[in-house]
């Protein structure tokens, strides 16, 4: 077995508001191999977005360990943490909120290249064009402002920004749930193509079991801050064990076959 791209052990996070405490993450562990997609599913408030943001070190954990490509991520801080971040990137749920509304597309994609000195300044425009092409957008979009794009185009830009540093792990926090149904499939196909080309490991946060079945190798089901079930996608879908998993599966709409006369009409 190859070394994991990212490995989290016993993650804990408790939020306090007044006298109330909420265990958002309660002993959560997961492993992700290079090129693999692990879906984390759960209902609203199950802690899956907290897990994504905790792995990104957007806030401090109360306990646990995260190892990224064999390095202890939680031990890093300051410049060392910022440098290590190039290997771990994230795509946010709502592309309208996750991109600086005053920036141009070019700047949004160029930022990671500049921050990590990946491409010298003179060749950055070409690199941006190349990244735009990889996510299926024309190069002349670079000078357009973020707010001129549609939701699907913005999410492509966000993906290009995340791919710019050639990360080992990409955390996708419900990357299609804020998008029109008509463009969800395109974005998912794009993500699958990029994974095949670069061998990136995906941590795919979602509540949509239909999407998960299409993209994930393995599934982890979260409820109340704990992982209640984990396994290969086919196994979990064929014989769900936890009550929460069955509830999520039941939530997938099934249309009853229409009566023959209505179809023929």
């Amino acid at each position, binding site marked *: 077995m190859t070394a994991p791209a990212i490995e989290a052990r016993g993650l804990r996070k408790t939020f306090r508001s007044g006298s109330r405490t909420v265990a958002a993450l309660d002993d959560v562990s997961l492993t992700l191999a290079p090129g693999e997609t692990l879906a984390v599913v759960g209902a609203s408030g199950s802690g899956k977005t907290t897990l994504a943001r905790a792995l990104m070190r957007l806030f401090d954990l109360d306990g646990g360990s995260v190892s990224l490509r064999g390095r202890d991520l939680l031990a890093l801080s300051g410049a060392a943490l910022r440098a290590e971040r190039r290997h771990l990137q994230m795509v946010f749920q709502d592309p309208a909120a996750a991109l600086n509304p005053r920036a141009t597309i070019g700047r949004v994609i160029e*930022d990671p290249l500049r*921050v990590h000195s990946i491409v010298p300044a003179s060749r950055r425009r070409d690199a941006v064009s190349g990244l735009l092409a990889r996510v299926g957008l024309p190069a002349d979009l670079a000078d357009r402002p973020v707010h001129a794009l549609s939701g699907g185009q913005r999410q492509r830009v966000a993906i290009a920004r995340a791919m710019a540093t050639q990360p080992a792990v990409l955390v996708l926090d419900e990357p299609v749930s804020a998008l029109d149904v008509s463009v969800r499939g395109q974005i998912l196909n794009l993500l699958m193509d990029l994974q095949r080309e670069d061998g990136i490991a995906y941590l795919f946060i979602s509540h949509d079991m239909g999407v998960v079945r299409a993209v994930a190798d393995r599934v982890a089901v979260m409820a109340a801050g704990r992982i209640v079930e984990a396994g290969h996608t086919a196994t979990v879908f064929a014989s769900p064990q936890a009550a929460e998993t069955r509830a999520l599966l039941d939530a997938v709409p099934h249309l009853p076959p229409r009566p023959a006369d209505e179809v023929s009409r």
Partner: protein
Amino acid sequence: MSGLSRFRGSADGIAGAAVLALLAIVAIAAPVLSPGDPLNIVGAPLTRPFEAWATPLGTDRLGRDVLAMIVHGARTSLTVGLAAALVAIAVGSAVGTLAGLMGGWIDEALMRVTEAFQTVPGFLLALAFVSTVGPSLAAIVVAIALGAWTGPARLVRAEVLSIRERDFVASARVIGMHPLAIAWREVLPHALPPVVALASVIVAGAILTEAALSFLGLGDPNRATWGGLIAEGRSVLRSAPFLSIWPGLALVVTVLGVHLTGEGVVAALALRRSQA
């Protein structure tokens, strides 16, 4: 772009901008409009307005041209007003951004200092500073900014507190951007629009404070200032009221122009916000 067109749609804004543009032209062209030192004696003392062609607004007790002094005074007023507002907004924005982004004890400390400054009346602060350091243009600018930076600081902090929670700031952290770069490039540009609206109030206040300092004899003695002119005319107020009225009118028109421009800016920003 559309913000500019909304500004043009505001009658207040147009009127204010026209007044300010005129004043700016007068201030910039002062050496051309009335060459030489405005403090030179050019005619008989206390010439009434519209009596002599050379001194259309009259002369003061020493025979100095009132129009020349008002034209040159526009330079002082606008320079001090804009410079003081600029310093106040720059300092206030820096303090507010730092406090809002860092949080914790840095936020606490900066806010306590801000409150300490707010408890002292701004004019008293300016008065104390200028009488200690001595009257010069730079000292007056600093003195006025000393009392004016707290407003922008609190406003920017409040904006930053909400902006820092937004996803595009998290996204900047995720790509490993330096915290100072995040503050400068991602957060501050979004916190500034309400401060721009506040700027007109600060500029108007700064112009009035400068006039008041000059009136009390704490202005730069080598420059013609409107406040100084009003003070100069005070002793002959009964016999030659025009000496105080002309600079007073200039002051009123300027402050009105600044306020009207501010109204236009607020209208442009408010519409942008409601559309966003």
